[in-house]
């Protein structure tokens, strides 16, 4: 077992150190940081925008680059939070609280440094966690039949909606809409065209990239254009970067706790960076001796969530790589990218393409090292980037998205799809429907149908097969429990509201 572990890692590092992979890892983390720094463009939109760039690459190189973009964007997002008090991406929202206060006190340097150090440490630990937990999980998943898979997907989708913020009912409806949109195109078992309305381009289904770019990219641009707020950038007084001895004494425990917390939360469905950073901040505030300084520039308030979000970002790869089930929207984009590359993510990837699996894991460590080495010296460039006015940025983003989407099939159809989903995305924002659950459903739709179909065929049309097989029943019970737990207090609260209104 021990030897196997080392063999795997050395195989991975062998792949990750190939110059082409190193190069694209570097490009990925740089692009990720660059776009992550820009306020209002998060990792999701970034990955959606850059998906077409990766199609010409080999699958492993593409995954390495996309993963680099993901954690690069996390790093970049923290920089923006600290210097501008605008989260570069959602997972950095809590970093604003204390990071920005530190910057106002002239301690932007140590805040940036602690975020980089915490993220790097968390990245290293999370890499090992992925390497240790993924193989047994994949081994287990290999024994799953179609009914187990179907129930697992139900559980994953329920988990993702439960942990998403906002209305649970609307999140469920969005998942369903995603599942249905995923079914558009040729039905695999009958060859029937479904919901294509005679449009030839829809026979392969709705284009994933156009959908994701429209819902996230375009909607985000329009939301940003609606805001006309001014922003104050702390550029002149970054101060010295190195944290003081006192800072180090105060930050190492929060970094450890943040890492552990983030690694655990990242694995959960719906988990990942966002949940990890919020949870870690709340936890740290409760147990820290300096709890009363939180919100006023406590270094713990930067160290814990920054470590947690990076750890969570990385461990959220586990369910995607081993089960083929994305736990959050970024992982759904990764699944989409893999499928376009002709690889169906799932437990077989590890045994059939070990070089890809372990190469990706090793590259995460390398990418994190690149970030910590590059980022602090490059901080000056990122700051200059923050000063670029949005009126220059958004046409540039549109150019990039337009060319990328057009190039998918060299036809205007995907551009049209992107525009349509852009409009839909704006409507979703206005009526407070999160698009993330929709993307998860969209990716899982065809797989879910196929597994349900097979499960029922094997059971000769008896739907109780889903609850008589123990593992499948377990997933469904877990899903129902999650729903009940989350709904219960909400029902109570809403009932109180009703009574007050009467």
């Amino acid at each position, binding site marked *: 077992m021990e030897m196997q572990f080392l063999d795997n890692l050395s195989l991975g590092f062998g792949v990750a150190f190939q110059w082409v992979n190193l190069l694209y890892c570097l490009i990925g983390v740089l692009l990720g940081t660059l776009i992550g720094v820009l306020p209002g463009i998060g990792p999701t939109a970034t990955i959606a925008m850059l998906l077409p760039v990766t199609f010409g690459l080999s699958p492993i190189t593409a995954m390495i680059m996309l993963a680099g973009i993901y954690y690069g964007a996390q790093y970049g997002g923290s920089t923006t939070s600290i210097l501008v008090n605008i989260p570069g991406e959602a997972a950095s929202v809590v970093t604003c609280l204390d990071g920005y206060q530190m910057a106002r006190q002239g301690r932007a340097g140590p805040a940036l440094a602690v975020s980089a150090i915490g993220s790097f440490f968390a990245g290293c630990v999370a890499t090992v966690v992925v390497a240790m937990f993924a193989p047994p999980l994949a081994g287990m998943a290999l024994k799953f039949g179609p009914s187990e898979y179907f129930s697992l997907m139900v559980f994953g989708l329920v988990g993702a909606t439960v942990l998403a913020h906002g209305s649970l009912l609307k999140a469920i409806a969005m998942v369903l809409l995603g599942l249905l949109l995923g079914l558009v195109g040729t039905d695999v078992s009958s060859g029937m065209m479904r*919901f294509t309305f005679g449009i030839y381009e829809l026979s392969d289904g709705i284009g994933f990239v156009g959908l994701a770019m429209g819902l996230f990219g375009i909607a985000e641009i329009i939301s940003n254009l609606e805001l006309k707020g001014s922003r104050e950038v702390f550029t002149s007084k970054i101060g010295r970067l190195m944290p003081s001895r006192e800072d180090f004494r105060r930050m190492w425990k929060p970094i450890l706790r943040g890492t552990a917390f983030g690694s655990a939360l990242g694995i959960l469905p719906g988990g990942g960076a966002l949940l990890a950073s919020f949870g870690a901040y709340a936890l740290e505030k409760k147990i820290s001796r300096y709890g009363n300084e939180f919100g006023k520039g406590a270094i713990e308030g930067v160290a814990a969530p920054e470590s947690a979000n990076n750890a969570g970002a990385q461990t959220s790869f586990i369910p995607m790589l081993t089960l083929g089930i994305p736990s959050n929207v970024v992982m759904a984009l990764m699944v989409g990218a893999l499928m376009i590359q002709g690889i169906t993510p799932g437990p077989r990837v590890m045994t059939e393409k070990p070089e890809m699996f372990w190469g990706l894991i090793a590259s995460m460590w390398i990418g994190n090292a690149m970030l910590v080495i590059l980022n602090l010296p490059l901080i000056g460039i990122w700051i200059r980037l923050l000063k670029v006015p949005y009126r220059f940025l958004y*046409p540039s983003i549109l150019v990039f998205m337009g060319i990328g989407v057009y190039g998918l099939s060299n036809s205007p159809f995907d551009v049209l799809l992107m525009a349509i989903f852009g409009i839909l995305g704006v409507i979703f924002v206005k009526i407070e429907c999160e698009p993330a659950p929709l993307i998860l459903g969209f990716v899982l739709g065809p797989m879910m149908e196929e597994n349900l179909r097979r499960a029922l065929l094997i059971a000769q*049309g008896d739907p109780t097969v889903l609850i008589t097989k123990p593992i499948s029943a377990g997933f469904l019970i877990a899903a129902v429990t999650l729903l009940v737990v989350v709904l219960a207090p909400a029902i109570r609260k809403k009932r109180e509201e009703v009574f007050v209104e009467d």
Partner: protein
Amino acid sequence: MRIKSPKDFWAGLMFIGFGLFFMIGAGNYDLGSTERMGPAYFPTMLGGLMAVVGGAVFFQSFVVSGGKVVAIPLRLLFFITVALLLFGYLLKPIGLVLALALLVVVSASAGHEFKLREVLLLAVALTVLSVLVFVKGLGQPFPLLPKFLG
């Protein structure tokens, strides 16, 4: 009955609409049986479920208070959408250079600080960059100039 949460009211209606749309649309296909699910089976099931959930959201909007719907920024949406569609549908006939210029100029007019000189400079810079990166670098087969010139 008073609508207490306009956002949920519209969201509920939208979900009911989508749900019914997929359910009715699936009526054109074979439903099959539980043992052999036809192409209509899963969509009918999901569409029905969605209409029910949408109905719950709709109902809830009369009971639980929520936010008002902020107006959709039609002008912004119009400029951005038109800019993208012009780019997409004109790229082949007029070539990348002019299509990009159109995309930049039209999308930039959506903003509230439009300065023609600035925008033209931006268009030139982005076009040069895109030609270098996408056409020369990544080898995308885009025509650069209009057909009648090429």
